[in-house]
Structures are given as structure tokens and as C-alpha cells.
């Protein structure tokens, strides 16, 4: 079929507008579903119109690819657990990067770039796409615990990375002079793939969300670069939107973790500060409690705040928590949730988990809204959260997390901390909260503990 390029471009414009409207929809929970559908429609428009492109002569390969990819994608989307969202996003992101990589390579081999811009753009798309692909796969493997979450590395790694990056850029420069140098092209591609691995391997498992978000930005830029190669405005615009989105999310996370992007990328935890000795902090000050005791406390409470953290996701305790809240509310207790911006392992992670358990989103209060209310809170239940409640961030100038904004849980009349042990959270620091006078520790798996409390409450 044949369609004038003008009409194709107008369809791409419509697709881009649909993407913009889609993202606009995502700014409010009420319109978010529609926003996502609008964006999906935009994708549909872009794809359908592309199929009418005059260069497309056979549909066999396309149909095969779309069916295979569609089935895999649909199954993944249906099966994945909400707690595994970070992994899922990492994987999808890697595929996106891989696609940009393959498209740019294909465009390169379709040949005929008289202009420098096209070759540079293709080279950049291959480079960024490849880094995104392997980088995201490593991030996925770390999150899924297929490989060790600890930072891995070897001496001179940074130098190797520098050589790989400079070599790739040099290769692009050579290709500009001599576009037929296929050997150079593939050497660059391999270098970029290796670079992706080496860049992410030295970063700690818990920092993966920042990495994913950054790689998401990269995948956008790669798509944009592919758009420059093909002269396709839909790719350019959409890629830029995604690039901006990834960058902003990265920034938000770094800010909430009180770390610079450079620190994350180079696996530095935070400069200076004598790390406190765990024994010294906890020695003789820990008060352990039981589910029954907690139930009794809750019995007389008027206001309870639940503080979910990464442990909630690990224990899959979201439904149990919801049940507990229902029981409490049936007894006339006011229940709210305190959501820290980096609780869990990706931005908004806790919101999604609790939404899955049908907790109404107006009960999810963000940090600034809930912090002033802890003083009027009878019981704060800290459920698998740790760093985001660590008062050292507020008080101890020497602490590596000093300055990170936290939930002021310690201001509540009683604090119940549910976790399996005294082991530290992601930041690896002891938490003086556990040793405070008004804190009770309930040791055990998050889900089990909550179920027990609920049972005790119903009996009592």
C-alpha cells in the first residue's frame, strides 16, 4: 500500500499528541487509567500507520514478531506480582533498549547515509541502546537475586569503562569517515554491550531503582536517536518525553535518598561519618513484644499510623495489613498510612502495593502531610521499614544519611516495629529508633506478625 509521507507524518503527530495527553492523564489517579489507554491508542495509531509505509513489502516477519512479543509481554504483565514491579520494569526497559539497538543497526545496514548526522545518530542509538539492554539485564538479575546484590568489581574497572566508552565514540567518528567499516561497527556494538554490564555490576542491589530509572531515560534517548536516523518525528518526540521522565524520576529518588547521582553510579554510600556501632546503639535497650500485647495497645488507640517499607513488599503483607486496618476501623480507630517517597525499592512502590490490597489512596499520606500528625498518634506500626524512619538522619550530623528527610515515627506515643531481626536496612546503619523508650519490637515475618495481631485483636 502507498500513502503520502505527509499523511504518515500527521498520523505520527496524532500519536505524539496522544502520548502527551496520556502522560497528562497520569497526573491524577482519577484520569490515570484513561491516560494509559490514550497512550496505548497513540502507540496503536503509530504502528498501524507505519504498516502502510511504502518500504514495507512483506508482513510475515512482522506478524511473527508481533505475535511472539505480544504473547510474552501479555503473559509477563498478567503474571508478575506487584512486589516484583522493579524487576519487571528493569526487564521491559532492557527490551526497549535492545529494540533501539537492533533498529539502529538495521537502519545502518539498510545503508545509504549520505549525511553525517544520520551516522552519528545511528551510532549513538546503537551505543545507548546496547548499554540500556545489558545494563537493565544486570539490574534485573540483581533485583531477582539471580546474581549477588553486592557491588562487584575489579581493580581498574573505571579505566576499562573509560576505554570502552571512548573507543565507542572513536568508532562512531571512524564510521562517519568510512560508513562501510562493518568490523568497526560490530566492535563498537560489542564494546557497548560490555560497557552496560560493567557500569551496573558495581552498583549495590538496593540502588537498582535509580539505575533503572536512569536506564529508562537512556532508552528514551536511544529511541530519540533512532528517530533522528529515520527522520521520524514520533520517535524523536516520544523518546524525549521518556528521557525527561526518566531523568526527573532519577532526580527525585536521589533527592529523597539524600545522595548525588554520581555517588549512586560510583557505588559510594556517602562521604565521611563514623558509622555507629550496632551493639552500642541497641545494647540492653531493646524491648521485645508479642502480637497479643500489640493487640491490647491497639485496642485502646484512637489513631494508628501504619508505616510500610521494603519489608512489606518482601513479606507480601499488603493484604494482611489491609485486613488489620479494616478490623481497627470497624472498632472506630482512625487508620492512616505514612508513605515515604523512597520507601520500598522504587518510587511509588508502597502506593501500588497498598492499592493492590484495595487501600483507598486518600488514606495514603505523603511525608509532609503525615509528619505533623505523629504527635497525635497513639500507635505507629512500622512494617518492614527501617532507613526511612531512622532518626539519625534528622539528628546525627556525622551519620551517612544525615539530611535525608524521614518519617518522624519516633514522635508517636508508642512505636511498634515489625521486622525479622535487628539487621539493618538498605543503608546498612543501626537505627536508634529501635532502642527508644516508646518503641516495642515485634520480631517475625511481616505478614505473619500482622495476621497474628489481627487475630488477637478479633479475639480480644
Amino acid at each position, binding site marked *: 500500500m502507498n500513502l503520502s509521507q505527509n499523511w504518515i507524518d500527521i498520523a505520527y503527530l496524532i500519536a505524539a499528541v496522544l*502520548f502527551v495527553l496520556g*502522560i497528562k492523564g*497520569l*497526573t491524577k*489517579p482519577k484520569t*490515570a*487509567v484513561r*491516560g494509559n489507554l490514550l497512550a*496505548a491508542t*497513540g*502507540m496503536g495509531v503509530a504502528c498501524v500507520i507505519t504498516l502502510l509505509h511504502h*518500504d*514495507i513489502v512483506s*508482513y510475515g*516477519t512482522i506478524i*511473527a*514478531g508481533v505475535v511472539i*512479543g505480544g504473547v*510474552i*509481554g*501479555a503473559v509477563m*504483565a498478567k503474571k508478575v506480582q506487584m512486589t516484583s*514491579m522493579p524487576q519487571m520494569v528493569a526487564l*521491559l526497559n532492557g*527490551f*526497549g533498549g*535492545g*529494540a*533501539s539497538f*537492533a*533498529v539502529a543497526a*538495521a*537502519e545502518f*545496514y539498510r545503508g545509504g547515509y549520505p549525511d553525517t548526522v544520520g551516522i552519528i545518530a545511528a551510532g549513538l542509538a546503537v551505543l545507548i541502546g546496547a548499554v540500556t539492554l545489558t545494563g537493565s539485564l544486570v539490574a534485573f538479575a540483581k533485583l531477582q537475586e539471580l546474581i549477588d546484590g553486592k557491588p562487584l568489581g575489579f581493580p581498574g574497572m573505571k579505566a576499562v569503562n573509560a576505554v570502552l566508552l571512548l573507543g565507542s565514540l572513536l568508532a562512531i567518528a571512524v564510521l562517519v569517515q568510512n560508513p562501510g567499516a562493518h568490523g568497526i561497527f560490530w566492535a563498537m556494538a560489542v564494546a557497548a554491550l560490555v560497557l552496560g554490564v560493567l557500569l551496573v555490576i558495581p552498583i549495590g542491589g538496593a540502588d537498582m531503582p535509580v539505575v533503572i*530509572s536512569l536506564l*529508562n531515560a537512556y*532508552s528514551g534517548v*536511544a*529511541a530519540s536517536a533512532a*528517530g*533522528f536516523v529515520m527522520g521520524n*518525528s*514520533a*520517535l*524523536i*518526540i*516520544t523518546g*524525549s*518525553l*521518556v528521557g*525527561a*521522565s526518566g531523568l*526527573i*524520576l532519577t532526580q527525585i529518588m536521589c533527592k529523597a535518598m539524600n545522595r548525588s547521582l554520581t555517588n549512586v553510579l560510583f557505588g559510594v554510600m556517602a562521604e565521611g561519618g563514623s558509622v555507629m556501632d550496632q551493639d552500642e546503639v541497641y545494647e540492653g535497650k531493646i524491648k521485645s513484644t508479642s502480637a497479643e500485647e500489640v493487640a491490647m495497645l491497639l485496642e485502646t488507640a484512637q489513631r494508628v499510623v501504619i508505616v510500610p517499607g521494603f519489608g512489606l513488599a518482601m513479606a507480601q503483607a499488603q493484604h494482611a495489613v489491609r485486613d488489620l486496618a479494616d478490623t481497627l476501623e470497624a472498632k472506630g480507630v482512625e487508620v492512616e498510612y505514612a508513605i515515604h517517597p523512597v520507601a520500598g525499592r*522504587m518510587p*511509588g512502590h508502597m*502506593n*501500588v502495593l497498598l*492499592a*493492590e490490597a484495595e487501600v483507598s489512596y486518600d488514606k495514603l499520606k505523603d511525608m509532609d502531610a503525615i509528619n505533623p500528625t505523629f504527635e497525635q498518634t497513639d500507635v505507629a506500626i512500622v512494617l518492614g521499614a527501617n532507613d526511612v524512619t531512622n532518626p539519625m538522619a534528622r539528628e546525627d550530623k556525622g551519620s551517612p544519611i544525615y539530611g535525608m528527610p524521614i518519617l518522624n515515627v519516633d514522635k508517636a506515643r508508642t512505636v511498634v516495629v515489625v521486622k525479622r531481626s535487628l539487621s539493618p536496612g538498605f543503608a546498612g546503619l543501626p537505627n536508634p529508633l529501635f532502642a527508644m523508650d516508646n518503641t516495642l519490637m515485634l520480631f517475625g515475618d511481616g505478614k505473619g506478625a500482622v495476621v497474628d495481631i489481627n487475630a488477637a485483636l478479633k479475639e480480644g
Partner: protein
Amino acid sequence: MDFVAQLTLFVLAIFLGVELITKVPPTLHTPLMSGSNAISGITLVGALIAAGSNDSVLVQVLGFIAVVLATINVVGGFMVTNRMLAMFKRK
């Protein structure tokens, strides 16, 4: 479209992206991540052209790989985002 026109689009879209994304509330950051991820599957467009062309086998193979990967990204991304957002909407 000439290079500067492309560059202009690129720059404008980045500004627009920044303005839009900063308005997304933290509650929706996870769906935003998966949703923008799905949108970045727009490379599917390029993949289709490569896979459907009557170019060399290499190009078609690369195109096929790209179509599979991009489709997973697009279908998986939009579907999982929809799944998450539907949870938010229920109430």
C-alpha cells in the same frame, strides 16, 4: 525533515516532558515508570519498517528481533500499567 527541525522537536519535547512529569504525584510514580517505559517502545515503529522491508537477511533478522523486543516492551508495559492503575481506580 532537516536536522535543525528535528533538534527543535527534540528540545521542545524535553521541555514539555519535564513540565508534564513534574506534575505526576508520587502515588503514581511506579505506574509512570512502567507507562513511560511502554511508551519508549515506540521504536516498534522503526522495527516494523526494518522487519517488513525487502532488504538483506541481516536487516530482516535485526528487524525481527527488534519487533519481538519492542512488542514485549509495549504490550507488557501498557498492560501492567493498566493493571496497576485499575487498582488505584477501584475506590
